């Protein structure tokens, strides 16, 4: 095994909190990619829901990893600092004892999990819902603009809203005359 691989493995094994922090971020990237792929390929979700769910999923992944790093890294650092400076102390454990390092490591692991829970379970869903709504509104706005009727003698422009450029046949004409949108 290469020196680099050995060093990485030993570092990860020594600093469990940092290892869990990094692997969680990478895991979320993979999960988000899979979920987005799942929505895109799911024929049972209608297009209107997809317009909300796809940006929600992509936003979820980006915001999740961003917020996770933004909250968890400082939380872990501050936990470590508080223990080093004596703002958090342990009963019958001095700084020189081997137990101290284990407790500090454990506190960092808890900080990393707490940061993940706060960022990915609370802040990310709120942020992604906001982003998803903005994206959905944008998509709907674009749809309205592209649906603007163009003059075409072979097509009835008023049908475009519901029938996607259906040619003007008799059945369509009957539907046209019954249409609630008909304003003459």
């Amino acid at each position, binding site marked *: 095994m290469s020196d680099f691989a*050995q060093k990485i493995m030993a570092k990860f*094994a020594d600093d469990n909190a940092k290892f869990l922090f990094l692997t969680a971020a990478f*895991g979320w990237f993979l999960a988000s990619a899979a979920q987005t792929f799942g929505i895109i390929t799911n024929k049972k979700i209608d297009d209107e829901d997809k317009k909300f769910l796809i940006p929600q999923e992509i936003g979820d992944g980006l915001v999740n990893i961003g917020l996770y790093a933004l909250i968890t890294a400082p939380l872990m650092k501050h936990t470590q600092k508080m223990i080093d400076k004596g703002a958090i102390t342990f009963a019958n454990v001095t700084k020189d004892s081997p137990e101290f390092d284990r407790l500090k490591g454990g506190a960092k692991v808890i900080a990393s*999990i707490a940061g993940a829970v706060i960022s990915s379970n609370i802040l990310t*869903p709120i942020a992604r819902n906001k982003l998803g709504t903005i994206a959905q509104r944008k998509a709907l706005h674009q749809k309205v603009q592209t649906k603007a009727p163009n003059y075409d003698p072979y097509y009835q422009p008023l049908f475009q809203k519901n029938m996607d450029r259906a040619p003007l046949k008799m059945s369509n004409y009957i539907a046209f005359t019954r249409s609630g949108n008909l304003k003459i």
Partner: protein
Amino acid sequence: MITRIQSNNNTVNFGALKLNKGAQNFLTKADNFSSVHQRLALGVFGLIVQPAIDLKNKEVDEDTRKVSALRSAAKAIIGTTTGIIVRGGCIKAAELKFAKRDSNGAVLKNAKKTVIDENKIYKTFKKGFDSLKLDDKQLKEAINRVPSVIGTIAALCVMIATNFLVDAPLTNKTMEKLEEIMAKKQQKESEGAKNV
């Protein structure tokens, strides 16, 4: 769980938080938490909190809100289940790879836990461990965490496939089932209201 120290002139830790024995035992265990514990904590909180947040999202209509909440619940259930199974399985496989064996090749166990061959791990990653300059106790702990590290990294590779092949389709299937249950429930409620 946490007892606040009374400040006085004789203590260095003025106004510090002193953790009691119970909290310390928990932190000692937490130092060896694996990605399985991490995934479990995230999954449980996710299942409780995320659908509630989706249902309170007033920016979208009620149907989209329900679809979104159902999807979050389905994601939490499926993601946590497959995540724990894949991580747990890969960590177990890594433990077996570095397990101590008897003369017949059978894995040695102590209180149902696989006994790790620490020397084998140390020899495999010697240059890495030597570069860290750890004391004996720290080295022993780091060595014992190696199967968890290898298992978690392997699990991430496996999950590239399972996310696409298991998570995504299962989430969709679960969501469809949940929607069916919701629709049936609503139908029953509306029928009940008509009968009244």
